[in-house]
């Protein structure tokens, strides 16, 4: 082998630095599979990008790379689930939801089978552009009966995602983001199905966020504190079923709500919160932060979060707006 050649290594393309990445989700899935022989993993030709390389190497008899063929993967998963297995199906968010909606509906959701759908590259968070962005996946799957949707706010919660997926008896969609570095030591709060988590107490308004927007909301909260605004921050990792009680109690306690999500403002977290408030006749100042019903583009994640109004300053602006409405 020529010398230049030995310096070249295969690397996965969501890893900009080409350093080995932590496998917070993949490790948790392997641990779960070692404890539960019903768990199998399917992947549509994106093994390291979906953290399933360890599963492939350690449990090869329970791992299938089905090729670039997502529809077949979901159908196969339905068959496996009918046969007593718990298949976890992996690809990017865009391909494992939108592309295979009918297969998910008929072969996983209607028969209420434990097909666990795991997507990476949530929302705008990819260099790969519109084809690989999923800004409508939560809206689409929220409308599918029996389906649960969970989204972690960071790698600290990836192990909890696997547990929640297994705790829900039917089909689940996990909306994952691969960590770019090893997470700092962090005491994770317990996540439960149908429960939001208050990550920061506050009394003037509540920011309900999910996924990448939770960290941005926490930053916005600090910025707002500097202006004398006390923001309560809720991590709504369980997007469906959603925590109606917490939403209503936050509305009552703080009198204003901002939602923040790495998703279109139509149909996702903001819509879910609005539906609950409207159903209960709660009329309070309210703003949705998210992609403003437009297509995005490829770029680095911080650039895209800023450009499309999903970052801390955008959330803080929305918070100031609801505060103004509240006082006016």
């Amino acid at each position, binding site marked *: 082998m020529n010398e230049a050649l030995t310096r070249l290594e*295969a*690397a996965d393309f969501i890893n900009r630095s080409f350093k080995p990445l932590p496998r917070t989700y993949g490790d948790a899935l392997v641990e779960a599979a070692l404890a539960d022989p019903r768990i199998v993993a399917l992947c549509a*030709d994106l093994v390291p990008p979906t953290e399933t390389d360890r599963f492939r190497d350690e449990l090869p008899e329970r791992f299938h790379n089905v090729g670039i063929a997502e529809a077949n993967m979901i159908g196969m998963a339905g068959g496996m689930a009918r046969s007593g297995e718990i298949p976890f199906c992996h690809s990017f968010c865009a391909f494992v939801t939108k592309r295979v909606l009918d297969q998910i509906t008929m072969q996983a959701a209607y028969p209420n089978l434990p097909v666990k759908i795991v997507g990476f590259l949530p929302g705008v968070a990819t260099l790969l552009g519109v084809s690989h962005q999923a800004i409508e996946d939560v809206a689409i799957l929220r409308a599918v009966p029996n389906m649960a949707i969970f989204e972690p706010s960071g790698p600290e919660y990836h192990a909890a995602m696997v547990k929640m997926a297994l705790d829900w008896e039917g089909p689940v969609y996990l909306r994952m983001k691969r960590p770019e570095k090893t997470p700092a030591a962090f005491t994770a709060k317990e996540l439960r199905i149908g429960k939001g988590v208050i990550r920061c107490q506050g009394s003037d308004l509540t920011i309900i966020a999910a996924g990448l927007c939770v960290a941005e909301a926490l930053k916005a909260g600090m910025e707002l504190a500097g202006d004398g605004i006390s923001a309560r921050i809720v991590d709504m990792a369980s997007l469906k079923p959603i925590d109606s009680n917490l939403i209503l109690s936050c509305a009552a306690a703080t009198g204003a709500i901002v939602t923040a999500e790495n998703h279109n403002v139509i149909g996702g977290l903001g819509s879910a919160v609005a539906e609950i408030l409207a159903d209960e006749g709660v009329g309070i100042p309210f703003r949705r932060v998210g992609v403003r019903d437009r297509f995005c583009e*490829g770029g680095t994640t911080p650039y895209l979060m800023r450009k499309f109004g999903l970052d801390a300053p955008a959330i803080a602006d929305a918070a100031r707006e609801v505060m103004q409405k509240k006082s006016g």
Partner: protein
Amino acid sequence: MRAKHNLAELEAVATRLRLHVVNMVAPSGQGYVQQGLGAADIFTSLYFFEVRMNPADPAWPERDRVFLTTAHNTAIFYAALAERGFFPVADLKTYVTDGSRLEINSSERMGKFVEATCGSLGQGLSVAIGCAMAAKRRNRASRFFVIMGDGEMQEGQIWEAAMLAGAEGLDNLCLIVDYNFVQSEGPMNLVMSLEPLMDKMESFGFACQEVDGNDIGALLAAYDTARATAGKPSFIKANTLMGKGVGCLEGLMFHQLRFPPAVADAARTELEAQL
């Protein structure tokens, strides 16, 4: 009757395109060097000889259309478009930087010369077929070329589309598979083999040819045959060598590769010597 091509000139174009690929991917390491080098002769033979298009009027209704369905193979695609005059060569420097329209996956927001947005694999052939059928209905002489990846043929939609193209006898359609034998998780035979691919496409009603996809003369001859074939869509299995033209990269079979500066420099020197 078409003018005879000048092979030496076209080969020089291909080398220039390869040099662009190296220069575009080197700064960030983002992009597909191997695939770009491997497909340079397909792009050259299409964009610099076979395909009728007008850079001054990219939306010219009578144009031939090229659909790049492996929309991630953009370093070579953008290099070809820029050298062909669709946008300034200087823009290539912005490849995969925040805010640039030269994204890793090509998008039609760039202009009419991106015939469809195809980063989600398996969709482009159907679009090309739709365009080809509409052209038939309008008695247009345009031809429709699809550059497809081999791994992409695992998508079921490809076979739905192929079945229809065969059944319709769409002879204005020419499907070129850039057969470099590598998909994201490795060599195709280890993931899911397509073979016997020629037999499959033949049975779907295509007129099939297999060529060295790094031989511009052979590619042009195959397009001639395709153009002369009535009543059937054409399928060209173009066997390409990943990294073609740069000794230390040739045959390295990885979907994504580190591209350290020293390797980029060596590649640049080697390609410049070929000019």
